[in-house]
């Protein structure tokens, strides 16, 4: 059971340019890999081993309590986990007034279209088919992964215009614009790639 980096978390006003990602996966191997992938892209990573731990970290385990100094820019979670699935976690986050605006990305080893649809409908920003590669994580650059150009402010309204601060790096892969229904492209592309594999 591990929950890393809780105390050393990013405080408001300090290194706020650094993207802080909360990674949730019950597999120790996968946590190690995702952590390295994100760190290579200059993110601060907190890796936890369950949805329950993730909620604890966010302070959501007791009625939306605000955790002083907590700043999470992106949540990336495995789908298949014992107890609370990534989908359950996604729902809880989207139900929270404090955290519903944080982009959530789901990872799964199984490229099941209804599952992907369900997650996207529930508000997931993207869906990554495992095993996770550097190119998958680079795709998340719209959420600041790989470096921010403009600081994305947390809105105090529920209407979020994420297109106001697009990153200007010149990566050749198609950019995901969070304000459009973006995720139809990339997971489906990924699906097409994986269905030709041996799996």
């Amino acid at each position, binding site marked *: 059971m591990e929950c890393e980096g809780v105390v050393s978390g990013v405080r408001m006003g300090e290194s706020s340019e650094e993207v802080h990602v909360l990674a949730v996966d019950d*597999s*120790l191997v*996968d946590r190690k890999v995702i952590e390295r992938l994100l760190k290579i892209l200059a993110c601060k990573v907190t890796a936890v081993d369950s949805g329950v731990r993730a909620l604890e970290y966010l302070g959501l385990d007791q009625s939306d309590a605000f955790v002083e100094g907590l700043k999470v820019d992106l949540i990336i979670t495995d789908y298949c986990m014992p107890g609370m699935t990534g989908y359950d976690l996604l729902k809880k986050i989207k139900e929270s007034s404090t955290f519903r605006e944080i982009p959530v990305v789901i990872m799964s080893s199984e490229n099941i279209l209804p599952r992907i649809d369900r997650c996207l409908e529930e508000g997931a920003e993207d869906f990554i088919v495992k095993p996770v590669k550097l190119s998958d994580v680079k795709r998340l650059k719209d959420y600041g992964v790989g470096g921010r150009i403009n600081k994305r402010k947390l809105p105090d309204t529920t209407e979020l215009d994420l297109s106001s601060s697009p990153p200007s790096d010149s990566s050749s892969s198609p950019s995901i614009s969070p304000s459009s229904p973006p995720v139809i492209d990339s997971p489906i592309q990924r699906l097409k790639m994986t269905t030709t594999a041996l799996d």
Partner: protein
Amino acid sequence: MDVGQMQRQWLDYTRSLFIEGFLDNQFLQLQQLQDENNPEFVVEVVSLFFEDSERILKDLTFALDQQGVDFKKVDAHVHQLKGSSSSVGAQRVKNACIAFRNFCEEQNVEACLRCLQQVKQEYCLVKNKLETLFRLEQQIVAAGGSIPMMELSF
């Protein structure tokens, strides 16, 4: 053996692991995440994979040894092993897990036992191969050389 010879040996050995299907592209991905600041990354991940796998294989053996086999539990274990082997690029272990899951679905104990044997075998094979590879790497580094960058096109 000089460093150059050791490096060639390493390259040949690594290539053979890919050609024989022990490793797939994901292993290359992991190698590319390694650098001077994280020179042990691959060894660390693979060590976690070994620990994880051994635990799962023990649990699987126990689960299949029961009077009333809980196939959901067995499948859950195999799913875990499939995931971690996939994440490190241990292709043959992963494929053995995929076959295993099909028999879990059929609730076929005999077939599952055979699959377990198969998975154990593949695991032992890849473990030996990777340990050999890491030993070669240590020798190269000890002799003052560096590990070549893999450039295989798939």
